[in-house]
């Protein structure tokens, strides 16, 4: 299972959000599982079409994901995933 960390900014909307292990073979599956655990969280990370929001970044290890449209990037069992607000935001 991937280990997921979050920007603290998301905690103000989801107070129970904490870093931890989340299953998912792809980033999309992982976001879907996060949304199941924290209803509504998915809408902070992606828009209605499932695209990563313009000013949100997901890193796997040190690299930003390559597919911001379908979040198809595969996750290794020991992947470290970081969900962050991009520096491009307002």
């Amino acid at each position, binding site marked *: 299972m991937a280990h997921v960390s979050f920007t603290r*900014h*998301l905690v103000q*909307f989801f107070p129970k959000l904490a870093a931890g292990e989340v299953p998912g073979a792809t980033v999309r599956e992982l976001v879907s599982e996060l949304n199941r655990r924290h*209803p*509504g969280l998915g*809408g*902070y990370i992606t*828009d*209605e*079409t499932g*695209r990563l*929001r*313009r*000013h*949100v970044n997901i890193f796997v290890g040190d690299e930003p994901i390559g597919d911001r449209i379908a979040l198809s990037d595969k996750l290794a069992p020991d992947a470290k995933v970081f969900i962050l*607000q*991009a520096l491009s*935001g*307002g």
Partner: protein
Amino acid sequence: MSDQLILGTRKGTLILDRTAEGWKPRPIAHAGMSVSYAARDPRDGTLWAAMDHAHWGPKLSRSKDGGATWEHLSQLAYPAGARFIEQHMPMPDDDPSVETPNTYKDATLLKVWMLTFAGPPGTIYAGTLPGGLFVSHDGGDSWELNRPLWNHPSRGGDLFAGNATSRNEWGGTPAAVAYGEFVPGIHSIVVDPRDAKHMYIAVSCAGVAETHDGGQTWSPCNRGMTNDYLPDPNVEWGHDPHFVTLCAGAPDHLWQQNHSGVFYSDDGAKSWRKVSNKDVAVDFGFPIAAHDTDGKTAWVVPAGGDSSRMSVEGGIFVARTTDGGESWQTFRKGLPQEHAYDIVYRHALDQRAGRVCLGTTTGNVYISEDAGESWTCVGNNFPPVHSVRFA
């Protein structure tokens, strides 16, 4: 009379209470977060804030305990298959003789611009960028897109079903550009107090539309509207209302602050007439407020023309008509008359039983207790004010 104000600001939601010592702001709610619109549902007292998160997408927030705690809601979203015809900001090197084929884009919520609480308890309307009207019938727990308006022939027809069957006549609003798109926006939603199935919406940049059947069918109602930026000033669509409201006690009286002046209708928007008066600098601006009961009375906060979009000659003033726009009185007492470069956004002026409040993008808030004739400053260091509404 209302003793409470709710302000949506660039850095949170501000509630101000009228006390024996004057209007006092509470500590800001949603601190640090941009709020595009905030208001109170008078039917059940719920407070609402339209969150304009830069990172996380637009969301709604509501408080059922008078602002002590807020609940974050994510349900307002465009349904799968909602598409629009892409538009592009006109560029200097555009060749108007070249017809470009339609391209389509999936709609995503860019901004909740306005909320209206009207009709049966629990019914709430939301106007959005990119030009969708949403309705909730359960107090905001769930929302649905009004498809007849989204699929209107003036927007290319039913794009859920396929490609355009008619020409899109709704223009983009520059107010959308900050969100990375050039799309229309619904900023005014007015429900007839006599008949909740009769509603008006106003769109930048398209005009005013009306339904008599609760949103099943929509028609433009822009007769008499003129503009000063198209070769044909009398087009059916293509107008740029900045804000539209009506007199609750005389609902056939509607007021419109438009890009091209102030317009008034006394026949339920069957026709409009321009009631600007450039001699007293009443022409361009964003907000307009209607009197509660007198259909001929309204207030505006004029601004320099569209090339400046700030106070006229460095002084803020409010103009009021009491004769349906035949004449305007201007009021400056208590408002800064030197070095003021403020602009008042379209939702940042409100009136209730002779109390009038305005907030500016420079963070200045003023209140009048005498129908706009004299003003008291409530504060000068608020964040940029997006909306002002009496509770």
